[in-house]
C-alpha cells in the first residue's frame, strides 16, 4: 500500500513538471529521464483502471503489458526526433513498475476532486503513452508511416480506401434516392471552457455512392486543399492543418442508411462525444454517429498554444440535405415573403411567428432574418444569436441546423435558369402537348426533355394554350420546383432528384403519380416562360432568390 500512497501523493506537485518534461522529451530527444518518466507514468496508470467509462483503453492486458515507445506510437511527433531506440529501455524500466501501479489502482478515488478537464487531458495523454500489447513491433513499422506498411490494419485500410469498397457489400443500393450528406463544422466547447480548437472552414460532402468513404487526416501539401463545399457529390478526403491529426486518422462511412465513424489507426486518437474509439495506432470498429455529435481528432499538444498543435473538434451534421431542397416548409416561407406587408390578413399556411418574441413576422417594415433552413425571425430578436462567439456559424434555434454565415453567396442558380430559358422559346410551340410528353421515357431529366424537336403543329399548341392558362397557378409552383431540382448539387442525376423530391411532399407533386405526368406539367409550364425573359417581374424571376437550395438564406 505504500507504493500507492507515493503514487497519489507524488501527483499534484509533479504534474506541471511532468507535462513540461513530456514536451521536452519528445522534442529534444532527451529521452532518458527515468525519474520524471517514472512518476509521470506511475501516477497516470494509477488512475487508469477506475476510469472505466472507456472499456477499450482500460483492458487489464493493456495495463499489465505496458510497453512504452512514445516516439514510435506518435508518428506525428517522431518527425522531430530521430532516435526511437531508447524507448525500449523504458519498457523494461516501466514493466518493473506494473505491480505497483496495479496496487495503486485499488486505492480509493482520492484524485476525483480533480477537474474533469485535466483528467481528460491526462487520460488521453496516458492513452497515448500506453500502447496496447504487440505495439512494440507494430509501432516501429508505423513510424515509417509514409511507406506502405505490412501492418494488417493499415493494409486493410489501404485496400478499402479506393473508390468502391468491396468490404462494404452490405450497403443497400435501394436507398440511393436519399443521398448521404455530411457536414463538418468547427465546434468550440464553450461549456468546458477548454482551449479553442483548430478553426477550419466548414466542409460538406455528398457521397456519390453509398460505398464511398470519406477519409480524414492531416492536410498535406501534396494533396492540396480539396474544395470544402463541392457542388457535385464528392468523397474527397478532408484534411486538417494540425500536427495532432494523423495522416490517416479516421473515416466516415455510410452503411445501411446510417453514418458511421471509424478510427483507422490514428496515433492521438479519435473521440466521439468524448469517448476514445481506439487505442493508438489501432483500427476501431464502426461507431454510428448522428446529427449533432462531436468528433475530436487528437488532443492538444504543448497546451495547444500554437495553432498547428491544436486538436480538431468537429460538430457533425448528417443528412440534412432535405432541408436544402424544396419542401413544404421552405415553400411556405417563400409564400411568407410574398405575403410580407399584408399583415395578419395574408392567406398563407406556414409559420408566421418569430420563435423568439412570438410575434408575427408578417407586418411591414420589419427587418427579418432568414436562415438557410428557411426559419425566419425578426432581425432584432435573432441578432443575439447571430453575433455570438460561434460566428460565423449560426445554429437555428428552431431546428438546430447550422448555417455558415460567412459562406460565399451562391449564385449558381442563375446559369441554370438561363439554360432553361434559352430552349424555352421553341419549347413553347412543341411540348405543350401532354400526349407527346407521356410518351417520353419515364425518367425525366430537365435537359433531356428540352431536346425533342419541334414536331407538333400550331393547332396542338393553340388547343393546349387554353389548358395552360387554366393551369397557370399550378405551373408557377411547378416551375420553382423545376428550377430547384435542376439547380440542386446533383445535376448528373436529376432522375434521382425528381424521385427524391417526389418523396419530400412538395405541394403539387403527387408521389403516386407516374413520373411521366410531371413530365407533362413540366413541359406545360415551359410554354409560358418566354414572357419571363423580358419582364423581370414575372413569377418566374420572382422565384429566383427564393430557390431554397440551402444557400439562399445566407448573406
Amino acid at each position, binding site marked *: 500500500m505504500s507504493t500507492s500512497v507515493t503514487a497519489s501523493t507524488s501527483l499534484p506537485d509533479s504534474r506541471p513538471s511532468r507535462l513540461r518534461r513530456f514536451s521536452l522529451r519528445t522534442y529534444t530527444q532527451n529521452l532518458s529521464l527515468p525519474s520524471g518518466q517514472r512518476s509521470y507514468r506511475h501516477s497516470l496508470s494509477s488512475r487508469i483502471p477506475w476510469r472505466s467509462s472507456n472499456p477499450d483503453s482500460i483492458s487489464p492486458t493493456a495495463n499489465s503489458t505496458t510497453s512504452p515507445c512514445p516516439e514510435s506510437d506518435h508518428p506525428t511527433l517522431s518527425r522531430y526526433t530521430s532516435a526511437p531506440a531508447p524507448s525500449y529501455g523504458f519498457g523494461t524500466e516501466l514493466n518493473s513498475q506494473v505491480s505497483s501501479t496495479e496496487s495503486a489502482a485499488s486505492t480509493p478515488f482520492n484524485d476525483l476532486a480533480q477537474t474533469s478537464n485535466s483528467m481528460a487531458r491526462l487520460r488521453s495523454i496516458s492513452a497515448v503513452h500506453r500502447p496496447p500489447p504487440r505495439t512494440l513491433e507494430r509501432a516501429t513499422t508505423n513510424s515509417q508511416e509514409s511507406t506502405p506498411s505490412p501492418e494488417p490494419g493499415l493494409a486493410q485500410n489501404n485496400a478499402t480506401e479506393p473508390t468502391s469498397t468491396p468490404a462494404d457489400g452490405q450497403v443497400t443500393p435501394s436507398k440511393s434516392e436519399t443521398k448521404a450528406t455530411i457536414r463538418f463544422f468547427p465546434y468550440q466547447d464553450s461549456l468546458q471552457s477548454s482551449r479553442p480548437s483548430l478553426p477550419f472552414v466548414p466542409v460538406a460532402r455528398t457521397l456519390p455512392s453509398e460505398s464511398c468513404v470519406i477519409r480524414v487526416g492531416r492536410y498535406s501539401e501534396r494533396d492540396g486543399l480539396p474544395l470544402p463545399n463541392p457542388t457535385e457529390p464528392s468523397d474527397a478526403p478532408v484534411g486538417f492543418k494540425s500536427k495532432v491529426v494523423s495522416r490517416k486518422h479516421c473515416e466516415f462511412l455510410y452503411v445501411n442508411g446510417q453514418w458511421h465513424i471509424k478510427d483507422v489507426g490514428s496515433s492521438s486518437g479519435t473521440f466521439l462525444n468524448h469517448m476514445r474509439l481506439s487505442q493508438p495506432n489501432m483500427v476501431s470498429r464502426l461507431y454510428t454517429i448522428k446529427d449533432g455529435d462531436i468528433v475530436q481528432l487528437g488532443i492538444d499538444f504543448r497546451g495547444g498554444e500554437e495553432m498547428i498543435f491544436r486538436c480538431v473538434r468537429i460538430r457533425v451534421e448528417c443528412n440534412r440535405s432535405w432541408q436544402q431542397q424544396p419542401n413544404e416548409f421552405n415553400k411556405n416561407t417563400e409564400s411568407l415573403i410574398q405575403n410580407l406587408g399584408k399583415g395578419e390578413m395574408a392567406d398563407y399556411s406556414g409559420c408566421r411567428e418569430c420563435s423568439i418574441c412570438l410575434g408575427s413576422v408578417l407586418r411591414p417594415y420589419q427587418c427579418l432574418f432568414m436562415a438557410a433552413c428557411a426559419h425566419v425571425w425578426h432581425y432584432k430578436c435573432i441578432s*443575439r444569436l447571430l453575433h455570438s462567439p460561434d460566428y460565423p456559424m449560426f445554429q437555428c*434555434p428552431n431546428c438546430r441546423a447550422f448555417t455558415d454565415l460567412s459562406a460565399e453567396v451562391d449564385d449558381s442558380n442563375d446559369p441554370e435558369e438561363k439554360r432553361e430559358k434559352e430552349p424555352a422559346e421553341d419549347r413553347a410551340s412543341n411540348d405543350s402537348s401532354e400526349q407527346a410528353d407521356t410518351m417520353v421515357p419515364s425518367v425525366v431529366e430537365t435537359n433531356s426533355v428540352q431536346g425533342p424537336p419541334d414536331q407538333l403543329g400550331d393547332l396542338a399548341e393553340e388547343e393546349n394554350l387554353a389548358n395552360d392558362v387554366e393551369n397557370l397557378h399550378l405551373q408557377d409552383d411547378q416551375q420553382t420546383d423545376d428550377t430547384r431540382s435542376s439547380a440542386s448539387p446533383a445535376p448528373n442525376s436529376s432522375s434521382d432528384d425528381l424521385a427524391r423530391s417526389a418523396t419530400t411532399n412538395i405541394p403539387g407533386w403527387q408521389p403516386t403519380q407516374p413520373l411521366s405526368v410531371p413530365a407533362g406539367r413540366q413541359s406545360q409550364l415551359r410554354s409560358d416562360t418566354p414572357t419571363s425573359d423580358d419582364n423581370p417581374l414575372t413569377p418566374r424571376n420572382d422565384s429566383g432568390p427564393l430557390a431554397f437550395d440551402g444557400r439562399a438564406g445566407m448573406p
Partner: protein
Amino acid sequence: MGSIKRISKELTELTESPPEGISVELADESNVYEWKVIIEGPEGSPYYESPYSHLTVHVQRTTFLTLLQTTQNGKFLVKLSLPTEYPFKPPTVSFATKIYHPNVTNDEKGSMCLGMLRPDEWKPSSKIAAVLQFARQLLSEPMPDDAVEGRIAEQYKNDRGRYEEVAREWTRKHAC
C-alpha cells in the same frame, strides 16, 4: 425589453388556456420573471393522491362516493424563474412543495432536473407551456437514468411498490 414582451405573451396564453393540470400566476405582479405554478399530480401517478383519499379505504361505499367529490388531486407548488436573458437562457423549475421523486432534489431548493432545460439542450423556441407540461409528464414517468436523487432512482427501478408508497405518503403529507 424584448423578453418581457415574450414572457407576458406566454403568461397570457397560459392563463387564458391553461394546459391540463397546470395553472400559473405571477408570484409578484410587478415581476414577470418569477412565476408561481400549481401542478396537479397526474392521474395514475403516486402524486395524484389527495389528502383524503387514504380515508376511503376505511369508509363504506356510500360515503366513499360522497368523499370522492370533495377529493382533490395532490397539488404541487412549483416556482419557475426566468433569467433576464430568456428565451436565450433556459428557465429554472423548482418544487416548493416537497416531493419524493428521483428527478427533484430532496432539499429546500427542490430543483428539478429537466433535460430540455440544460443549457446545451435549451432552444429559445421552446415555450414555458412545454416546459411545464414536460415537468408534469415527469411526475407520471420519472427518468431514473437522469436522476438527481440516486437513492430514489434506485428504489424506483428495483422496488417500485415501496417507491410509490413513500411518494404517496409524501404527497399526502406535503401536497395541498
